[in-house]
């Protein structure tokens, strides 16, 4: 009886500590901070680039955050250059293009597109490329997947977490 009560108490404690209550790990590149989706694994590609993939990845999805270099000029120059840069992708087709504002007040532009990656030219990948203007730097949040999540849960979560450290 006592063991059953004790076991029930332990299970109740475990149920209380859900992933949403635990402190999320956050990453910082320069003075740009963001929180990746919980349970995703990180790969660091250089000092300004982080790539996260889920531990179980049937959709072959990833979220990449790139803090670009300082760009001289106004924000429109960064947005125009990002739009032009999309042409390096093979067979790229931009299906949507709209301005975006995050919950932290950062503004930018979102490009939804499809393309054939290098080394996988027989498979079409979907990408949501959001470029945010943070000071003089473009910050790219790129969701890439062979089978994109229609709800964009992980992408929206990462996007909402991006903030400039004071």
């Amino acid at each position, binding site marked *: 009886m006592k063991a059953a009560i004790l076991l029930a108490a332990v299970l109740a404690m475990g149920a209380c500590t859900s992933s949403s209550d635990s402190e999320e790990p956050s990453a910082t590149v320069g003075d740009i901070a963001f929180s990746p989706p919980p349970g995703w694994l990180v790969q660091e590609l250089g000092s300004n*680039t982080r790539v996260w993939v889920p531990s179980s990845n049937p959709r072959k*999805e*990833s979220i*990449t955050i790139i803090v*670009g270099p300082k*760009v001289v000029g106004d924000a429109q120059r960064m947005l125009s250059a990002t739009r032009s840069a999309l042409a390096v992708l093979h067979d790229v087709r931009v299906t949507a293009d709209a301005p975006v504002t995050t919950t932290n007040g950062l503004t930018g532009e979102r490009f939804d597109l499809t393309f054939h990656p290098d*080394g996988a030219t027989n498979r079409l990948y979907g990408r949501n490329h959001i470029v945010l203007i943070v000071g003089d730097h473009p910050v790219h949040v790129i969701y*890439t997947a062979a089978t994109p999540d229609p709800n964009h849960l992980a992408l929206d979560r990462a996007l909402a977490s991006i903030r400039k450290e004071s």
Partner: protein
Amino acid sequence: MSSFVHRAALTASFVLGLGLAIHSSRTSADPVPPGPGSDLTEPVTGDPALGYPEPGYETGPIHPFDPSSSDPSDVQIEDLSPDEQAYVEANLDTSAWPPIHNAFAAATTQAAADATAQAAANLVGLDGIESTGVVP
């Protein structure tokens, strides 16, 4: 005492004379800029160069893509051998040239577009986005 004074005077006069000789030789070697009309100025003769040919030697503007006018040393096509005539006549047919020119023009345009896109990618830190984040 008198011999000493005599020797001193003799030495002083020698030094003075030597100094005067050096000074005069240096001043005589200094270049004297020739004044106008002096013997060292180069006289102007003839007509100055005007940048255009003498009358009768005009060639006119150059049109590099126009056929040149007939030259007495030109060989008439009828005077060529049959093989040479066939070679000349084969090169007269330019109907196959436009597709070649168009292909080069398209390739050049595409290369320019690729370079523009790559330059934009470098500007905003998107080097290698073709493969970044792609899970095979």
